[in-house]
């Protein structure tokens, strides 16, 4: 039961409190670039969640049973980025073969995820925080869902920005960042939620 409570706390804190995009600034590029329409935002969010989960499933055991056992922790960065890059490629090939419809929906987003810092970030953070395998998986799921949530919320705001008259020099990235800051401000309201979850 204690274990289950811990998992819920990890999930809630990674979705709401420590939201990767809005609080830890990981994965800002796709957040600003692909959030223009809601269907694109959902496609990107789902792909990132999927890749985060698969990447954690692969990197955690490799770190535990290969890198730490042989004292190779300093190779972590190289090994992880290579694993993520090849996983993304494999995932794309598998999806193309077995689920063409899903591939049509997500396929275009997958290659862009290789250089997404949120995926590498979640793998490294799971190790640094000393999570067990199950906790790592839950935390990656939470981070992915948090990313998806932020993308969906933000795509709604951006469609409103499109309809307004923005001062010339603020057009494009500047106004987008300022709008993102307001969502981030709203998410700060969740700050205390996890501490009192089971109080």
């Amino acid at each position, binding site marked *: 039961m204690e274990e289950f409570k811990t998992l819920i706390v990890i999930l809630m804190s990674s979705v709401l409190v420590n939201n990767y995009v*809005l*609080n*830890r*600034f*990981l*994965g*800002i*590029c796709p957040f*600003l*670039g*692909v959030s*223009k329409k809601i269907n*694109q935002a959902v496609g*990107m969010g789902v792909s990132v969640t999927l890749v985060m989960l698969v990447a954690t499933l692969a990197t955690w055991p490799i770190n535990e049973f290969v890198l730490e056992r042989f004292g190779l922790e*300093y*190779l*972590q*960065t*190289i090994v992880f*980025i*290579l694993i993520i*890059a090849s996983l993304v490629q494999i995932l794309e090939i598998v999806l193309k073969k077995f689920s063409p419809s899903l591939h049509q929906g997500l396929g*275009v*987003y997958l*290659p*862009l995820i*290789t*250089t*997404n*810092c949120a995926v*590498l*970030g979640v793998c*490294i*953070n799971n190790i*640094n925080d000393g999570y067990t395998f199950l906790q790592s998986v839950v935390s990656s799921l939470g981070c992915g869902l948090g990313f998806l949530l932020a993308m969906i919320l933000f795509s709604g705001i951006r469609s409103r920005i499109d309809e307004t008259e923005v*001062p010339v*020099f*603020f057009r*494009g*990235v*500047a*106004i*987008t*960042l*300022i709008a*993102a*800051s*307001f969502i*981030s*401000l709203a998410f*700060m309201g969740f700050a205390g939620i996890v501490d009192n979850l089971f109080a």
Partner: protein
Amino acid sequence: MKKNSSLYVLFNGILRENPVLVLILGTCPTLATTTNVFGAFGMGVATLAVLICSNMIISLLRKIIPDSVRIPCYIVIIAGFVTVVQMLVHAFVPALYEMLGVYLALIVVNCIILGRAEMFASKNSVGKSALDGLGMGIGFTLALCAIATIREVVGAASFAGIAIPFLEPLKIEFFVKAPGGMVVYGLLIALVGRLTKGKSPKKKDFTCVGCPGMSFCTKSTCNVKKEV
């Protein structure tokens, strides 16, 4: 200044094509490490070191690396240098290592480095690539320090960790929190756009070229073209 002279290449990165404020690359470290000037400067120098080394090696190998597997090759080269920098920082500046945490490892996925490899180092000589790395790195460091100065002085009433007592009652903590960083960054981008009106290259000229995803990008995923 002549378009291909070394000086032009160097200053291009610092001013005209500043990676942070004009090209809008490397947004994640820009927002995450600018809560104080010390961290921002450290991040800038670490990125500068990786950028120069990776640009030089990639430029040296540009005729050897086959075109179809160049992105993975670049990533391995960059990851190698990031590991070197990580170990150096850990050994000599442990305080900085603690402060930057995961973001030091994440230099490997910084779009500036992969973008310059793809955009510049893979087409130019070693000397020019090194200069380009130096210019871009200095531009990155300066922009980070500028953002960090605003955020730290206004938000924490200190500069590089040294408290400024007379500002203490006026500090607005919002600016060192996550949303404050976005506001300051957005305002600076708008300011640079205002100051360089007509002089700076239009964003659409290079946003796609500089994008690390360019080689596999199908235009439908990315709306850079429509956005500018």
